[in-house]
Structures are given as structure tokens and as C-alpha cells.
């Protein structure tokens, strides 16, 4: 029995880590996969989602709707920024990285000035359950399921809808897609908005479990980065395996040596992966199957 409890405790940690990495990585991966833009303001979209969720929940909006508000707010900000800034930098990779980094600095410091060093958090819903000597949060146990559901929904979106077909065509060959009537610039804009909204959703989902602070984006972006680099450009193919592998490495190291060593382990993994599989897991899988 104790062994089973220990095993479940490890599995719980693994699943928690997996959910976190998937949710963090989704928005970044979609934007990177579609237009090759590395959005260094990704963490700040997550922060935006968390802040809007916390503020609207405290204003009396029921939690699920507050989360929806957070998601939509981040998506809206993404839509505006794409129109004003990102759109002009599509052909200048380094400049788009630097510009989103600038946005990240502005957003972090701006939020610090507007909302102060931290805001009062929310209570985690659903309480907890006991198993042996441990106590587990029900809400956090649900997050892996939500992560899997989201992956399924995105699979449907990219494989079964018109938007999905157009966007996959745009990834493969933007000029040909345009010639065949896909409105690529609208697809870019929609994708960026979707990525930002997914980042907002991540912030919204984690809002009840953390204290929202202006610098929280930095904690999220490192994890997001790591997942996306290991995953490679194809979200559908690479993200889940990448998150699973990384979650395993992280849980193992965190369990034995503490959180910071777990973090260092992730970063070292990325360095090795960039060297060995520069196109990530998905690039490697596609190559093996004679794809691109």
C-alpha cells in the first residue's frame, strides 16, 4: 500500500509537471510553428491571463467565466500587438525576437507600476484528497486532463476545420497557399491571437494556484521555451512527447535534489537537444518517416 501511495505521489508530480509544460508550451509552440516567430513576451501573455482572471473573480464573476475573461483579454492584446508590431517583423527573425523582448520588459514593469508588487490571490477550488501520508489538490490533479483535452481540441482545430487546412497549407508553402486563395496574413493574425489566448488560458488556469506577481512571466517562459525547443516546430506531433520526457526529467531531479536543480536539468536538456536534434522531437520523427 505504501509503495502504491509513493508511486501515485510520483505519478501525480509527473502529471502535474506534464500539464504545466504542455499548457506553457502550447501558445508559444503554435506561434513558433506557424510563423517562426519566437515570442519572448509569451510569459507576459500568461501574466495578463492570470491578472484578468484574479481581478474579475474578485469582482464577483464566477471562476470559469473569470478564466474565460482572462483568456479573451490575452487574445485581444495579442490581436492588437500583432496588428501594430509583429506584422511588420515577419521577415526579420532576430528583430521579432528583440521586439517581443522589449514588449516583455514594458509589460512586466508596467504591471508593477499599475498593480503593485503582488495582488491578493484566489482560493484553489475543489479542496484536496488524502492518500496515505500525502494530501493532493483535486484542482491540480484535474489540470493534466485539461491539458490533454486542449491538445485534443487543437488537433481537431488543425485537422478538421477550414482554418486548420489553410493554416497547415500556409506552414508548408505560404506563397502557394496564397496563390490558391488562402488569406495568409489573416491566418498569421488569427494564429498569433490564438497563441496569445492559449497563453492567457494557461495564466487563467494557474491563477487559483499561485500568487500573481508582475515577474511571473519569467518563471513561465523558461519552461515554455524548453518544451517548445525539445518539441520542434510541429505542435501536434512533438509537444506531448516533449512535455512527457521533460516532466520525467524534472520530477526525478526535483524529487532528489530540489526545485532549482530540476530547473537546471531542464535547461541542460535543452542545450543537449539543440545539439543532437536541432529540429526537436517532431523534426526527428518526420525525418525518420521520410517527411520534410
Amino acid at each position: 500500500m505504501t509503495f502504491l501511495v509513493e508511486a501515485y505521489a510520483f505519478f501525480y508530480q509527473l502529471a502535474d509537471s506534464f500539464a504545466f509544460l504542455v499548457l506553457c508550451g502550447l501558445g508559444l509552440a503554435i506561434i513558433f510553428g506557424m510563423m517562426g516567430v519566437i515570442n519572448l513576451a509569451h510569459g507576459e501573455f500568461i501574466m495578463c491571463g492570470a491578472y484578468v482572471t484574479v481581478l474579475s473573480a474578485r469582482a464577483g464573476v464566477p471562476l470559469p467565466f473569470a478564466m474565460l475573461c482572462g483568456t479573451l483579454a490575452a487574445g485581444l492584446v495579442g490581436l492588437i500587438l500583432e496588428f501594430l508590431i509583429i506584422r511588420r517583423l515577419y521577415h526579420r527573425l532576430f528583430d521579432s525576437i528583440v521586439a517581443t523582448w522589449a514588449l516583455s520588459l514594458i509589460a512586466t514593469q508596467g504591471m508593477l507600476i499599475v498593480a503593485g508588487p503582488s495582488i491578493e490571490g484566489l482560493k484553489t477550488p475543489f479542496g484536496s484528497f488524502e492518500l496515505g501520508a500525502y494530501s493532493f489538490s483535486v484542482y491540480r490533479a484535474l489540470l493534466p486532463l485539461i491539458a490533454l483535452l486542449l491538445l485534443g481540441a487543437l488537433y481537431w482545430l488543425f485537422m478538421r476545420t477550414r482554418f486548420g487546412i489553410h493554416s497547415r497549407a500556409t506552414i508548408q508553402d505560404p506563397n502557394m497557399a496564397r496563390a490558391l486563395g488562402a488569406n495568409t496574413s489573416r491566418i498569421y493574425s488569427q494564429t498569433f491571437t490564438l497563441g496569445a489566448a492559449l497563453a492567457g488560458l494557461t495564466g487563467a488556469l494557474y491563477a487559483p494556484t499561485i500568487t500573481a506577481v508582475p515577474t511571473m512571466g519569467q518563471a513561465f517562459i523558461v519552461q515554455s521555451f524548453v518544451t517548445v525547443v525539445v518539441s520542434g516546430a510541429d505542435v501536434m506531433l512533438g509537444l506531448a512527447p516533449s512535455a512527457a520526457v521533460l516532466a520525467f526529467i524534472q520530477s526525478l531531479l526535483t524529487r532528489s535534489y530540489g526545485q532549482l536543480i530540476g530547473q537546471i536539468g531542464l535547461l541542460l536538456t535543452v542545450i543537449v537537444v539543440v545539439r543532437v536534434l536541432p529540429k526537436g522531437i517532431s523534426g526527428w520523427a518526420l525525418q525518420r518517416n521520410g517527411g520534410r
Partner: protein
Amino acid sequence: MRRWLTLVDGPQTLGHGVAFWLAFCAIVLGAAVLPAFVDAFLITNLTYFMVWVFMALGLSLIWGYAGILSFGQTAFFGLAGYTYGVIGLNLGDAGLWTWFALLISLVLPAMLALVVGYFMFYGGVRDVFVGIVTLSITLVFETFMAQTAGPEWTIGTARLNGFNGMSNMPPLTFPWGDSPLVFDGPPFFWLVLALVVLVYVGLRILVNSRFGNVLVGIRENPDRAEMLGYNVRLYQLAVFVIGSVLAGMSGVLYTLWGSYITPSSMGLTAAALPIIWVAAGGRKDITATLLATVFLTWLSQQLAVKGNQYALIWMGAILLVVVMFAPEGLFVTVWQKLRDRRRMRRVATAPETVSFPSG
């Protein structure tokens, strides 16, 4: 020797001719005699602005001239700072030990850069992935140093102190009979000034030499450079090491300046600053980088001193505006505009002297 000196002016650097160098000498001489006229506080401040120049010049070389976007400058900065801290605290300021510590603090970043650069450039890591690897290394350093709070993280007599960082390192000291020469206040200012001049002129010669021209060729088209028979990876490795040592030099001087170093001097925000200075001034020119670095460190300090928290917002906004509207950099764009206008005027006032080569 004379052949080398003629390379201070060339196609890869802005600013040449008698007027430019007269102004340069005037500024350097003016700065050198400044400690006689102004108070110690201002001198300390000016030293602070110049301390960062090396890291920025190194990034200008790596990113602007060789086209490699490295986010790792602060990793080398931190490594050098911590190295000086550990050696300085262990060996003290007797004899020439502080200079030994300085030397080792530059050798270690060079060695790390050699290993990392070999790993990247000879391992086929390219483009944006270089940025990812260097950023990861920076974050590994920061995270690692942040968790060294416990007493078990002690090297000799020096405690690493986790997030609070190390402090109380000895200043550079030169034994001189009964009263050793301590590089503090004005002497330290002169030392840093001399280093800035030396590195600036040295880099001008370097980028206008054959080495620099090949670098620019690689930046413009790595494949073409390789086809022409240049060992691209070797050049990239060399420039990465030089740039990293310069970052290390900033790290040591910063540690000496404030006698402390912390993990946050390597973190994400710290790593963004060199990128901002270099991009804002104009990454493809070292003069623009130098001016922008001094100006922007001065500006952030002014904003911070005024007690408001807008310094980082301003930095971010400047970076954004530059990237959007003057991708070559603010200083470079203005410089080129002025030069073009002067040329236009010359053409307009003296049309008969202008001749076009035929054929």
C-alpha cells in the same frame, strides 16, 4: 606597426578623418583630466557607465559584425565577476595577487566560450538556436548561483551566498613601497578609461583588418563565405571567444567597481540590457555601440535616481521604436543621414568636379 595603425579607419567603422580623431582625442583628454575638477561621486559614476562598454562592444562584434545573436554575454560577465570574487577573497590584496585574480577572471570566460563555441559552431547549431543555447547557459548560471545560499557552497574562504551574492572583494592593488597603489576612485577611473580607449581602438583595427572583412562576409552570407574557402566555424568561434572575454572584462570591472556581484546580474532582465544598448546604437558599428551604451546607462541611472520605476519601460520602448523604425540603430541612422546630406550638398554646390566613371 604603421600598417596596423592605418586600419583604425576603414570600411567597417563609421567616423574617420582628422576632425573625428581630433574630437576623439579631445574627449579622451578631457575625461582624463576630469578628476582634477569634479567631485569623487561624479567620477565613480562615470566609471560605472564605462564599465559596461566592454560587454556591449563584445556583443556588437558577435551580433553586429558576425551576425550571431548571443544572449549569453551576462553569463560570461557573471562568471568573470564570481571568479574575481572567489580568488580575491581567498588571496587578499597582498603582492600582485589581485592582478592574478583579474587575469584568471578573463581566462575562465575565454575557456568557457571556447568550449561552448566549439559545441555550437562545430556542432551545426545555427541561427536562432545559438540564441537559445546561450540563453539557457545564462539561466543555468543564474539558477545555480541563486541556490548556493547554504554554508556548503564555500570555495576556500569565500562563501557564494546564494541570491545575496558576494561582496567585500579587495580592489586592484599594486605594491609600491610602503604605500601600495590602490585602484580606487580616480586611479580606477583612469584604468577603466585607458582600457576603453585601448579596446575601442583595438577593435577598430580588428574589424577593419582582413579578419573583420571576413566576419562581415560571413554575416552577409555564411554559405558564400564557406564556398570562397573561409573556415566559417573557426571565425565564428574566434569572434565568440573575443566577445565573451570582453563581457568578462565588464564583469570583473563591475565587481571591482561596487565590490559585489549577485546572480541577478546574469538573469533575464540583465541579459536584455546589452541587447538594448547594442541594438539602439547600431549593432554594426562599435562607435555607435559605445556611445549608446554610455548614454543609455546614464539614462537608466537618471531615471532610477529620480525615484520612478519607469527606467525599464523606457529601455523597452526605446528598443521597440528602434527595431520598428530604425533597424540599423538610432546613432547609425542619424550618422548616415547627416553624411548623405553633406554629400548631397557637395554634389549640388560643385557639380563640375563630380565625374562618373565610364564603363
